[in-house]
Structures are given as C-alpha cells and as structure tokens.
C-alpha cells in the first residue's frame, strides 16, 4: 500500500510544486514589498510585543534572558502552525472547482498548503537569525537540532491540517470555531510569557500542549545552548506522528463524501 502511495506522489509531484508555487505567488501578488513581508511580519510582531510586555506590563522573565529572541522564537514556530492550519482549513473547500472537475488525490491540497507555509517559515527564520545576530546571542552547533524540531512540527501541523480540511467540508462553522480556538491556543502557549508565571498545578496542563513542547525545544537550543532531553525528543515525535496518523486516517475515511458537500 505504501508503495502505491509513493507512485501516486511521484506522478503528482509536479502538481504539488505548481500548487505551492501558486499559493506563494498569489499571497504576495499586488503587494509592493512582496515576499519581504514574510521577514518583516514576525520582526514587527516581535518588536510590538517586546515594547508592550517589557515597558507597559513590566513582564519579567527568568534571569537575564534575551527577551526579543525569546519572543521571536515562539512567534516563528507558533505562526507557522497557525498559518499552515488556517490555510489547510479551506484547502478542500477553496479548491472545489478543481475537485469537482478532475480526479486527483485530495490529500495534495492540505499538503500543498502546509508546504507553502514552510516556505514562509524559511523566510521568518531569516528574521529570527537577524534578531539573534543583532542581540549578539551566540549561535552554537546545537542549532542543527532545530531541523528535528521543524520536522516533527511539520508532521503535527500536517496532521491537524488534514482533520481541519475534512471537517470544514461538512461544517463551515469550523472557520469561525478554529479562529477562536487558535486565539485560546495562543494564550495557552508561552509565547510572550514564561511558564513560571502560571501556578504549579497548571504546569502539567501546559506541558500537555504540543505547541508548548515545540516552542520549548527550540528555546532550549537557541537561548540556553543545550541539547534537549531525550524525553523531549520522544515527545516531539510522538505528538507529530500521532497527529499525522490520526489526521491521515480521518481524511481518508471522509474524502469520498467531500464531493457531495462542496
């Protein structure tokens, strides 16, 4: 069965490439700065948050931490997830004109959306390293381990994307529900605050949040220059694989019904 999927992917490789190219081109069409926005957006978000939380709210983080790098690490990772899942949400409903005309594997649409967001992630990493450079944070060999973080995050995001794409076909309410869910999720993930500000009894709840794990893994590397614990390596992969398998199975079971609801 796996072999069959691989041969299908091979056949539709060029379509996948074209879909990603289309999404990326359309995203910045008619904007003057174009792709520069992928770098500027996280940079400005980080600046705004840094000003708001260090000056207005007098947010204190543990020790003499590099707050700008702390924030932009969280932002880059969390924004990738929200952007990719929000794109996937409408991946099927937005491409109904193709799905109702031509036979093609429907998986390709959420995958294309997630890969498009990876391209954006690449550009926002430029912003991340710019901030690291400006704030004179050291870059150590540990940064290689970020690839593992991103790989697991990709699996997790794709899995959630599959579920959302399928659900939206049946319930258009998902667009509004998910919007609220992401808002709650943003506050439940320590992006601009440190987990030490929440009560001790709440810490396990925060740790159960996959996004907390993906963000913390990256911060361990970038800010503390240390190898994350074996446990963290395992957790990242487990979350990623579990989401992908669940998402893939759900999508596969529902996809035959899509055509009647679009």
């Amino acid at each position, binding site marked *: 069965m796996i072999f069959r999927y691989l041969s299908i992917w091979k056949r539709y490789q*060029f379509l996948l490439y074209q879909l990603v190219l289309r999404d990326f081109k359309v995203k910045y069409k008619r904007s003057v700065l174009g792709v520069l926005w992928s770098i500027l957006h996280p940079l400005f978000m980080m600046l705004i948050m840094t000003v708001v939380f260090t000056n207005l709210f007098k947010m204190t983080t543990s020790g003499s931490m590099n707050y700008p790098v702390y924030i932009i690490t969280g932002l880059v990772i969390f924004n990738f997830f929200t952007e990719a899942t929000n794109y996937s949400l409408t991946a099927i409903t937005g491409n109904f004109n193709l799905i109702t005309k031509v*036979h093609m594997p429907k998986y390709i649409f959420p995958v294309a959306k997630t890969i498009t967001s990876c391209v954006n992630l690449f550009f926002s990493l430029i912003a991340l390293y710019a901030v690291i450079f400006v704030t004179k944070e050291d870059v150590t060999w540990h940064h290689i381990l970020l690839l593992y973080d991103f790989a697991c995050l990709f699996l997790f995001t794709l899995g959630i994307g599959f579920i959302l794409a399928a659900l939206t076909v049946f319930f258009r309410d998902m667009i509004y529900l998910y919007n609220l869910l992401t808002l709650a999720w943003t506050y439940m993930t320590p992006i601009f605050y440190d987990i030490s500000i929440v009560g001790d009894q709440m810490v396990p709840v925060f740790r159960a949040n996959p996004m907390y794990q993906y963000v913390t893994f990256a911060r361990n590397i970038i800010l503390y220059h240390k190898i994350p614990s074996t446990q963290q390596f395992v957790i990242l992969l487990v979350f990623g694989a579990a989401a992908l398998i669940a998402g893939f199975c759900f999508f596969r079971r529902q996809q035959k019904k899509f055509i009647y609801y679009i």
Partner: protein
Amino acid sequence: MITVEHVGMKFHLGIEKINTLKEALIKSVKREMPKNEFWALRDVSFHIDKGDVLGIVGANGAGKSTLLKVISGVFEPTQGSVRVNGMIAPMLELGAGFDTELTARENVFLNGAVLGYGKQFLCEKYEEIVAFSQLADFMEVPVRNFSSGMLARLAFSISTLVEPEVLIVDEILSVGDAAFQKKSREKMQSMIDGGTTVLFVSHSIDNVREICNKVLWLDHGRSVLLGSTQEVCDKYMASLGE
C-alpha cells in the same frame, strides 16, 4: 477502451444537505435523517473502443454531465463499475482550473499539472499551446483581465494540445468567436483522426451528427438508446417533436 457496467449514481438532494453544525444538531435531535434521494444515473451500461467518438444527448438533468464525471473518476458510482484504459483529459469548464491572479503562462503550467502532466512535457508543448490559442501577446497578463472568449481559447488549447487518450468535452464548442469555433472543431477532428477517443456532450444535434460515430441517449438517468449516430439522433429528434 471504456466499459461502463450498470452504473448508478445516487445523490441526496441539496435541500436536505447538512452543512453547518447547527443543522446537524437540530437534525440529530429531531432524529430526522436526510432521505430525499435522487438517482442521477440508473443502470447505465455501454462499451466504446479506442477511436470511438461517443455523443451523449438528452434533456437538461438527464445525467449527461454526471456520467462524464463518473467516467473521469470525479464521482465514484454508487452502483456498478467503470473501467477506462488510458489517460483522460477532462475539458475544464471555462477556466475552472485557472487562478485569476496568475498570468496566462503560469496558468498553462498549473492547469497542465492539474490534468496530470509533467514539467518537461509542458515545456515542450508550451509554444504550441500559445500559438493555438492566439494569445501570444497576453501570456504575461493575469487572466482576471481576460474576456470569457480568451479564457475559453486558453482552456481549449491546453486540454487538446496535450494529446490525451480520452478527451471529455462538455458543451465547449459553443464558446469563442466563429473563427475559433471552426478552428477547435478542426482540431477535434484531427485528434479523432489520430485515434483519440472522445466523449462529447452537446445540445447541438448538428454538432453531434457532424463528429460522433456513436450516440447515447439518456433520459432521467436511464439510457434510452445506444447506437449509430443516424439512428439515435433521428429517434431523439422525433421524440422532441412529439
């Protein structure tokens, strides 16, 4: 080449379709499940060989477009089976596969990829597609600025110049100006001469008589008659006259 056996296609009518969470909740509370079924196709069987040009005629709602979609694999039939040997190129309705923000050139590649072709193949065919569409001066223009005639020309040029083994044409020859209509009919004729199998849906009996060698007459999802163009068209026209 194409074998269709006892194909039935059942739909739940749109009125009863549950599309929001609220409706689903109300429906489940009321224990009311959608029962409004509609058979768009019922027990349709036929077989055509390579090189055949099958015309499909019938009134609106007879199931012609549904049949094409079942054959091209978009719909999975509720009953029966469809076997197709060879690559199918559906004629995308007026730029259905186009992204209006992209230029015509970008759309040629996107559309070609949607139809299942690879990069190398499309690069080789690109010049030919442009020449046939007569849109050489507009290839770098976003297609949102195209007229519907220009869109149709581009769509037709992509669908036909990639040499499919099975071409599916749903009412396309009625678009474009007279000159392009003539040109596209000639193009189809040359594809037919070259051995391409064509499935052709049209309300124009004249077009059907001109290019088809077999005709299938559908009425309310059932096949009424399958036979030679002359025979089926005459009987179909006679039934309309009643």
